[in-house]
């Protein structure tokens, strides 16, 4: 059916500001979407990293008289060994304890001479362990042991990162929706501007599908072109952003990593699909309205 009507390529004027507007709109929106995507991915990485770092580790602090320390430590390790969801439990060495304190008290703190509590790092596996159950068992077996599962004071960070990711995703949806609306309006504007073209084509016996196709093709290509350029510039801009500051510890760079660089390439295709659907609806809608 498409072929029988003949080539539609030149039926709709090539130039025209609505056409450029379409390309430009698609370009700008995709450019912004690339940023939103980068934000969303970075926030996702961040949330994941924190989530992982925090939910997978817990600390047990054992404060006991020096002579009972060894015994209680062993008791705790025994309890942990039989706790489901605990992958690994390990008493920190003096060196490690020293490092933790260094920012506060300097590297020359004589840890071994101090009656400091002993710290045990617990790495959980799978769904993690039941913190409340563990606490009860510990209080029975090793009264000087206190479980600190970190969640209390770091959880808000994870929540915040999750929200950032959500914000990025919502932004992409918003941007996509706005782009669809703009392209629909631009298509309607182009159809209005080309009312005479439609009238002439109708007069000489062109079918709706033939007329619509000419507009849809032009708009889809326009949107694809603009969106492609937008994606390229967006990726360039993201690549040129100040690099990831991993020293910052909790901030990850606003950029793409590895395979993520392929994701923004999907945006122009999505934009073209949006343009195709939006223009098609607009065209048939408009054609139905004309005699």
């Amino acid at each position, binding site marked *: 059916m498409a072929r*029988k*009507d*003949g*080539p539609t390529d*030149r*039926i709709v*004027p*090539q130039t025209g500001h609505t056409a450029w507007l379409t390309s430009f709109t698609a370009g700008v929106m995709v450019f912004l979407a690339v940023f939103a995507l980068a934000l969303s991915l970075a926030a996702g990485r961040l949330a994941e990293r924190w989530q992982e770092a925090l939910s997978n580790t817990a600390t047990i602090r054992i404060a006991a008289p020096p002579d009972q320390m060894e015994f209680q430590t062993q008791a705790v390790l025994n309890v942990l060994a039989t706790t489901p969801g605990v992958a690994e439990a390990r008493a920190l060495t003096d060196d490690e304890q020293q490092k933790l304190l260094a920012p506060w008290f300097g590297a020359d703190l004589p840890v071994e001479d101090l009656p400091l509590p002993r710290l045990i790092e617990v790495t959980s596996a799978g769904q993690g362990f039941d913190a409340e159950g563990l606490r009860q068992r510990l209080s029975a077996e090793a009264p000087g042991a206190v479980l600190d599962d970190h969640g209390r004071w770091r959880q808000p960070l994870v929540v915040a990162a999750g929200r950032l990711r959500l914000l990025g995703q919502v932004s992409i949806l918003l941007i996509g929706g706005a782009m669809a609306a703009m392209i629909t309006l631009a298509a309607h504007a182009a159809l209005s501007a080309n009312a*005479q*073209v439609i*009238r*002439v*084509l*109708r*007069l*000489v*016996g*062109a*079918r*709706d*599908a*033939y007329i619509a196709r000419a507009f849809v093709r032009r708009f889809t290509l326009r949107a694809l072109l603009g969106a492609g350029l937008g994606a390229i510039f967006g990726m360039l801009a993201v690549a040129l952003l100040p690099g990831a500051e991993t020293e910052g510890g909790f901030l990850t760079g606003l950029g793409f990593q590895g395979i993520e660089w392929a994701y923004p390439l999907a945006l122009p295709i999505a934009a073209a699909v949006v343009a195709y659907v939006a223009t098609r609806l607009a065209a048939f809608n408009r*054609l139905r309205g004309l*005699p």
Partner: protein
Amino acid sequence: MRLNPPQGLGKDATAQAAFRAVFHVRNTRPVIALEQVSYAYGPEPLLTDVNLTLAAGSFYFLTGPSGTGKSTFLKLCYGELKPTTGRVTIFDRNVKDMKRDELAIARRRMGVVHQDCQFLDHLPLATNVALPLTVAGRGNELDDLSALLAWVGLGGLADALPPTLSGGERQRAALARAVITSPDVLLADEPTGNLDWDMSQRLLALLVELNRMGKTILVATHDMNLIRAAKQQVNARVLRIRDKRLQAAGADL
């Protein structure tokens, strides 16, 4: 062909039969038929009680003062407007039952010259004139294009863009576009309004030629000289719109 008898004849059956005899009712298949058609843009009807059967191979002129509904009548004939009441039949199909695609296909068998000739302004004249063939997927039948353009006096303007054409050149181009598919029916709305006498004679010759090939022709015009000239060459009948009705106008010509 059926036609509203002039009002003076009243309901007298013999008079009506005589009137019909004058118009040589042919028994060929009708191309376009209007039965008891009325049309209203607003609350007041513009045309009422219109009956007309365009037989294949007939030649009609349509006259009437400005604003009486000639263009409206033509639009009813090619389905751009649908009748308020009554029935319009194009190629044996009721217009009201035709889907837009069917109508598009039917249009390919009709040549239409609009009163305000419109073109695809970004494409050269030759492409515009060939458009009906292109749209119908018959772009390969384009041999006669330059002969046709030469006939309507546009031989040197094949590459000109429509907005650069003069008023008369546009009308000629519109006629050329209407006849390029060699349509079964030609509906032309004031095709010589901006043309000098010589050129309108030339276009008339083209129409007469088409009519002799068996095409049905309906031309709306104010130009009485054109009608007179046509009547010397072909069996043309003249319709007139008066008092919202379609009448035969024979007496004054």
